[in-house]
């Protein structure tokens, strides 16, 4: 079966998703599941009255089945008691959609998980909060705090001068290179912005959360050609005689992945 062999019902929910949007207020709880790295991210918002789901909305970044299962899940549980909603399984969602391609079954899992996460948040008293407060980020230093105590990046010393830079003297050596600039406060932001004049691929990586204030030195990156990754840090530089890739720790998801780069800028 092809990964896109969707039932008519699934296609209908993809084309006309029900209950898209957000909810706000003291009687609202939010559930989140997924990770853009894997290609899907869902938020489910529930408004609870008398222990029932009075209203429900969702936002989803993902493939056709991720969108359709989000939509179907919200349809299924609207009006249910929280106990009933907790019992809704991925199979219930897939059945209601008249089946999903086997490789996409995990998508139906995500929608049910996001719902259950929202119910859990409600029951734990996390109500009326903005979404996206992953536990780990609370452990990170807030924006703007001293960044001198950065953990060492494995392999960086060995490849110093072979793709690892401690300073940027001549930006022209970065022409057409895939460059990763590690957050070291304002000087590193300036370097990242400058390098976009010389190459089309500048990634800025920060272990902090995305800035919320206009005064944060990282805010100007938003309107630039720099690709910014927050809540992630390089843990190792890999390469055979020169930098080839960087192993990255996604702090939000506590996962690791590799990024192909030619140069890594870690200002002193």
């Amino acid at each position, binding site marked *: 079966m092809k*990964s*896109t062999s*969707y039932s008519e019902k699934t*296609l209908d929910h*993809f*084309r006309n*998703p029900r209950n*898209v949007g*957000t909810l706000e207020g003291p009687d609202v709880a939010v559930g989140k599941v997924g990770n*853009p*790295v*894997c*290609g*899907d*991210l*869902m*938020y489910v918002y529930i408004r609870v009255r008398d222990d029932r789901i009075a209203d429900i909305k969702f*936002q*989803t*970044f*993902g*493939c*056709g*089945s*991720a*969108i359709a299962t989000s939509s179907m899940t919200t349809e299924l549980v609207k009006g249910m008691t929280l106990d009933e909603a907790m019992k809704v399984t991925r199979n219930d969602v897939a059945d209601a959609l008249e089946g999903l391609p086997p*490789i*996409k079954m995990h998508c139906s899992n995500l929608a049910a998980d996001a719902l259950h996460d929202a119910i859990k948040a409600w029951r734990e008293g996390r109500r009326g909060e903005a*979404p*996206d407060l992953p536990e780990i980020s609370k452990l990170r230093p807030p924006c703007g705090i001293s960044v001198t105590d950065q953990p060492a990046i494995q392999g960086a010393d060995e490849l110093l001068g072979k793709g690892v830079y401690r300073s940027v003297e001549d930006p022209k050596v970065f022409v*057409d*290179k*895939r460059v990763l600039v590690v957050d070291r406060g304002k000087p590193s932001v300036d370097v990242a912005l400058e390098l976009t004049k010389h*190459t*089309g*691929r500048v*990634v800025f990586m920060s272990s902090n959360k*995305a800035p*919320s204030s206009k005064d944060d030195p990282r805010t100007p990156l*938003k309107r630039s050609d720099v*690709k910014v*990754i927050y809540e992630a840090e390089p843990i190792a530089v890999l390469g*055979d*005689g*020169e930098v*080839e890739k960087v192993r990255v720790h996604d702090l939000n998801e506590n996962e690791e*992945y590799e*990024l*192909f*780069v*030619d140069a890594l800028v870690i200002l002193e």
Partner: protein
Amino acid sequence: MPAQVYLDYQSSKPVDPRVVHAMRPWFTERPGNPSSLHLDGDEATDALERSREKVAQFIGANKDEIIFTSGATESNNLAIIGYAIRNRKRGDHIVIAESEHISIHNIAKALEKQGFKVSKVGVNLYGQVSVEKLHKKITNATILVSIGWASSEIGTVQPMQEIGDALQGRGIALHTDAVAAEGLVPIDVSKVPIDLLTLSSNDIYGPKGLGALYIRRKVNIVPIMPGGGQERGLRSGTENMPAIVGMAAAADIMASEMPAEVLRLANHRDRLIEGVLSQIPKCHLNGHPTERLPNNAHFRFEAIEGESLLLSLKDKGIAVSTGSACSSKTLEPSHTLLSCGLLHEEAHGSLEFTFGRWSKPEDVDRVLEVLPGIVERLRSLSPLYEKEANS
């Protein structure tokens, strides 16, 4: 010819009706096997050798340097594995580009299981290999380098002349999978020092199930499939005469029409790239801005997922491809996109448009008419985009 707005020529091409016409007698009226000694056999032998001549001419090769195979995958296997095994005494190291299509990575993996060592040379942000980086990967044990002439996915064309010149005289063979480039970029092995070159019939509007391998004189390989010894013993099996005649006809047509066709395709491509980048915010071109196939436009759209885009375009009768994991068999995003330094989430949001012989200006109009709305709708569902707009 295709009924819908078909912008997925890199995945599969229709066979040119003129090619079908040339093939037709070989299904019914001409039963001959080139190995047979009767008149029908002689007729088939003549047609086989004439076809070989035409395919050779198409890439500036000699007739005796071409053998027919069942397609590009077989040609790649025969070239890389056949060469590596034949030349193992001289060394056990091969180099491929990190940006190669997964099929080349898998052939390299098969060789690793047989004890060969494989190095992967990195590419720049456009997916291009540099001679400088290639040099650093070469060791005394290197016997073969395999780098695709162009990427069928992001459309980036490799500097093959430079790469070939750099390797010449060093006892290292150069193989290139040219299927994405053939018919779109001039290929002339009398000028570019390439030792082994993979061709596919369908990529020049010939029938599927046929390919060819160019093997430069004095370059030795061993067969990977024992049998009756056809094709100089390198590729056994009774010759697929209708397809061989078809590929030769396709090469003939392509040779005469290519200059005008390339200009026409580049015009479609440039209109699409300009239109998409100017009408849709937070959207980027993948691959090289200028050194790219004339028929290829490859984009990534922030905060949306490629399969959703593909399905939405499908609903509007437009056929495209995506490098998104959700559309693949393995749920892994395209390795080619990752090799250019893209993050998984960026690879997921990619969309590929490829034009071909029957593409019309209206196809571009149609995409530009519907795509901005589709992107806007999917972004309205996406938590990633809203967050960006608000903060």
